[in-house]
């Protein structure tokens, strides 16, 4: 376990190699091999570390790599404190689970990308892997960080990589803009996070997670007053909202779909966006001492989940649907943490990582097959052309829809159950969302894979087949635009194998968290909750007791009922989707026309972007203009006045200089020039004349010597 620092460093090395040398020298396979190998190494180390953690008595391990910031005396509540930040990595159940997710899914996506990005020119290809590796480096730093500051390094790093990768095709204006948007919106959240960290240090005099948690557990639960802990939590939550795309800062995530699809899968579905959830989970103790903030978290999560789901209902861009779905599922996770079910949130985080990565990669495969077409209206009947992708994506959709037996069912159901205990209202919200989720997911599946093919035509089948070899050969030669599309086709092995692995994961990952009512029958406990417990619960005795108490109140019957109800809702959603998009496709159009107003609102995503544009952006720009006017008139005026004064003074000095000082100098020069006529005669420029002069000198000396000798 002492080698856990290598887990983030390995992809870092890969990024450095590819970035410093690769872009100039490496061929595509070499770059991909380096990236995949470093990620594979990180995955192996992660598995190894995780296995050791499972076997360890004390499930927490901190490795301090080096001193980063030496102790700096800073003011805190309790007088001077030492602000100190070692480069320390912490391996505990929560971070253990996270590194497995990040390195595992990261590795699969590296593999997938090596094929998916093959159409890129060599430089871009290597650059992509450099960014991807760099992202994994920062993400692993984030989850392994032992202090808020190390975590913040990762936090900002993944933000940077997200920006780079969204804007990977930077020559496309929309991509560049989306990158900027993601970056700017994240800044808002990061600002809150930084403030939160400041406040933590000011309050506790330390920024180490464990020490903070221990200190916080000694403080009373702020159920009545909005105290310092609540403030901290609110600020941290602002950070989480930014990173995890919750209301009101979710707007960047759908736009982030401009990036390459593997990026969307890795960063904007499986890992980075869950950093907010992870962070809240990591600070479970703090949050459980601030029930008011918890409520805010739950409400924000619930509302986000519902709102994103409604938008997702009408989107036609396959990646946008998945993006809103991600926002919605993240809302779910926050809902779970908000109601105190940190374990359930983390559990959903894990299952979501599997099926959402799967869905994104599957959609990437489809997009790839359709020659970069993302509009679902132009797809259809793809199951004919790409069976593997279809099957794996279907499994993913089933999982996210919460069909019993698959992973989504377990995690979502647990959240629902916990929510019901906390607040039936929120439960209602969540159930409706679940139904919508099932609907739009299957709408996606049906529009893409079923029905008639609606895409562009390509060369006749026979011809296409005959030219297959030729096309492959052409692909080998160059990627500069000469790529000819020969109709939808199944993706290469390198892309489908990760899909299959993820599909298996999406199917079975839920079995680590079987809910007690089923687990009791088969004699298996909720393994993951039990496993994650030390990270969340131990310290917050008060809340834990309350939670236990509440759950205990939920009878098996009610729980079964809830479960059945949610399954029913999901089933309804699927059925509705089938009805509207397979059985009677015209009906969907009619519906949209009948409900034109609502449809328009949903298609335009509630006009949130426009609202932000007219308020926040316009406001910022207006105030900037005002400030500029002040700057120009007042500040510049003062500076110009000073300038004028200087010039006036210098004119006086100039006159003096010109007639008095220069006059003296010129006089001296004139004297020299006039006098030099006499001496210039000797300077003939003939070297030999000078030599004669030298010789004459020698002659004189010799003569003098002789004279002295003979006379003396």
């Amino acid at each position, binding site marked *: 376990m002492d080698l856990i620092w290598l887990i983030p460093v390995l992809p870092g090395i890969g990024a450095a190699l590819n970035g410093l040398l690769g872009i100039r020298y490496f061929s595509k396979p070499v770059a991909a091999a380096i990236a995949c190998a470093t990620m594979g190494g990180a995955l192996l180390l992660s598995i190894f570390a995780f296995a050791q953690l499972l076997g360890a008595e004390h499930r927490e391990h901190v490795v301090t790599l080096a001193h980063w910031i030496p102790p700096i005396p800073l003011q805190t509540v309790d007088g001077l404190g030492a602000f100190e930040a070692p480069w320390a990595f912490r391996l505990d159940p929560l971070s253990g689970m996270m590194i497995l997710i990040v390195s595992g899914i990261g590795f699969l996506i590296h593999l997938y990308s090596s094929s998916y990005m093959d159409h890129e020119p060599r430089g871009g290809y290597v650059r992509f892997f450099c960014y991807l590796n760099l992202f994994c480096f920062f993400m692993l730093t984030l989850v392994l960080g032992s202090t808020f500051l190390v975590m913040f390094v990762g936090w900002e790093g993944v933000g940077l990589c997200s920006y780079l990768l969204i804007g990977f095709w930077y020559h496309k204006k929309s991509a560049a803009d989306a990158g900027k948007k993601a970056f700017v919106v994240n800044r808002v959240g990061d600002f809150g996070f930084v403030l939160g960290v400041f406040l933590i240090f000011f309050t506790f005099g330390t920024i180490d997670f464990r020490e903070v948690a221990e200190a916080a557990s000694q403080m009373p639960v702020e159920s009545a007053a909005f105290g310092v802990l609540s403030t901290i939590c609110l600020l941290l939550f602002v950070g989480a909202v930014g990173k995890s795309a919750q209301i009101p800062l979710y707007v960047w995530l759908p736009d982030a779909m401009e990036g390459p699809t593997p990026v969307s899968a890795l960063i904007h579905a499986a890992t980075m966006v869950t950093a907010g959830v992870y962070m809240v989970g990591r600070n479970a103790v703090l949050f459980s001492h601030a029930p008011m903030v918890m409520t805010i978290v739950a409400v924000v999560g619930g509302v986000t989940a519902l709102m994103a789901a409604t938008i997702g209902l009408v989107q036609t861009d396959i990646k946008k649907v998945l993006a809103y779905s991600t926002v919605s599922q993240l809302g779910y996770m926050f809902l779970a943490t908000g109601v105190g079910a940190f374990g359930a949130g983390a559990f959903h985080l894990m299952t979501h990582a599997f099926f959402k990565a799967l869905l994104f990669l599957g959609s990437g495969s489809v997009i790839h097959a359709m020659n970069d077409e993302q509009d679902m209206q132009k797809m259809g009947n793809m199951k004919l052309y790409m069976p593997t992708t279809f099957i794996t994506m279907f499994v993913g959709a089933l999982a996210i829809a919460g069909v019993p037996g698959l992973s989504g069912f377990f995690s979502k159901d647990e959240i629902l159950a916990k929510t019901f205990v906390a607040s039936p209202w929120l439960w209602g919200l969540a159930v409706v969302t679940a139904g919508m989720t099932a609907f739009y997911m299957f709408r996606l599946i049906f529009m893409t894979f079923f029905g008639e093919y609606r895409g562009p035509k390509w060369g006749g089948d026979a011809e296409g087949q005959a030219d297959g070899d030729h096309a492959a050969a052409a692909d080998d030669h160059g990627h500069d635009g000469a790529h000819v599309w020969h109709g939808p086709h199944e993706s290469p092995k390198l892309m489908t194998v990760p899909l299959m692995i993820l599909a298996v994961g999406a199917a079975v990952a839920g079995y680590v968290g079987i809910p007690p009512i089923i687990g009791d029958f088969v004699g298996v406990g909720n393994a993951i909750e039990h496993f994650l417990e030390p990270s969340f619960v131990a310290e917050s005795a008060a809340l834990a007791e309350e939670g236990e108490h509440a759950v205990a109140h939920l009878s098996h019957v009610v729980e079964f009922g809830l479960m059945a109800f949610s399954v029913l809702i999901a089933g309804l959603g699927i059925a509705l989707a089938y009805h509207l998009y397979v059985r009677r496709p015209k009906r969907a159009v009619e519906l949209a026309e009948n409900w034109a107003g609502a449809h328009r609102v949903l298609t335009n995503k509630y006009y949130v972007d426009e609202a932000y544009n007219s308020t926040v952006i316009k406001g910022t720009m207006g105030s900037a203009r005002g400030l500029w006017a002040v700057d120009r008139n007042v500040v510049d005026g003062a500076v110009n006045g000073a300038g004028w004064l200087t010039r006036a003074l210098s004119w006086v000095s100039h006159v003096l200089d010109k007639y008095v000082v220069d006059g003296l100098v010129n006089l001296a020069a004139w004297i020299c020039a006039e006098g030099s006529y006499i001496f210039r005669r000797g300077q003939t420029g*003939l070297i030999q004349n000078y030599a004669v002069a030298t010789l004459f000198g020698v002659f004189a000396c010799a003569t003098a010597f*002789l004279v002295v000798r003979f006379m003396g």
Partner: protein
Amino acid sequence: MAETIVFYTLSVLILGLAILVVTAKNAVHSVVALVMTFLCVAALYVVLEAEFLAVIQILVYAGGIVVLYLFVVMLVNLGRSPEEHQDPRRLSVFGLGLAGAMLLEVAGIVVYSYNRSASTVTAPAAASPVQGNTQELGWLLYTDYLIPFELASVLLLVAMVGAIVLAKRDL
């Protein structure tokens, strides 16, 4: 007796060839006369029991430096003789007279001083641990005169760099 013959023969050769160097119309002839002069000087070194220097004189002077002159003479392929243009202000005749006077003076000094002190002063070097002209010279160069020797090598390096920089047409 033999030494006398050899000395006078060589002296006549050296001076005659040197005059040829200075007076030859064609620069190439000058160079050839210069080589001959140097070879004769080398022979004089042998008479003076400085075999190593004699060989070095041939190797470095005759075989190296003068070849350089020859190259330059050939490269500087002149359309007109450089002697065609003469600056009216030059003091050649004065210089010639002055040089002659100098020669007389120096000869005078030499003859005078040797006549005054016929006894020659010898200052034998401290007993050298090695035998033979070359070895002793090497010993001196690498012990007492090590620093000047190294400086000379640096000088040559600098000259080499300088020559390349100057001679390269486009840098």
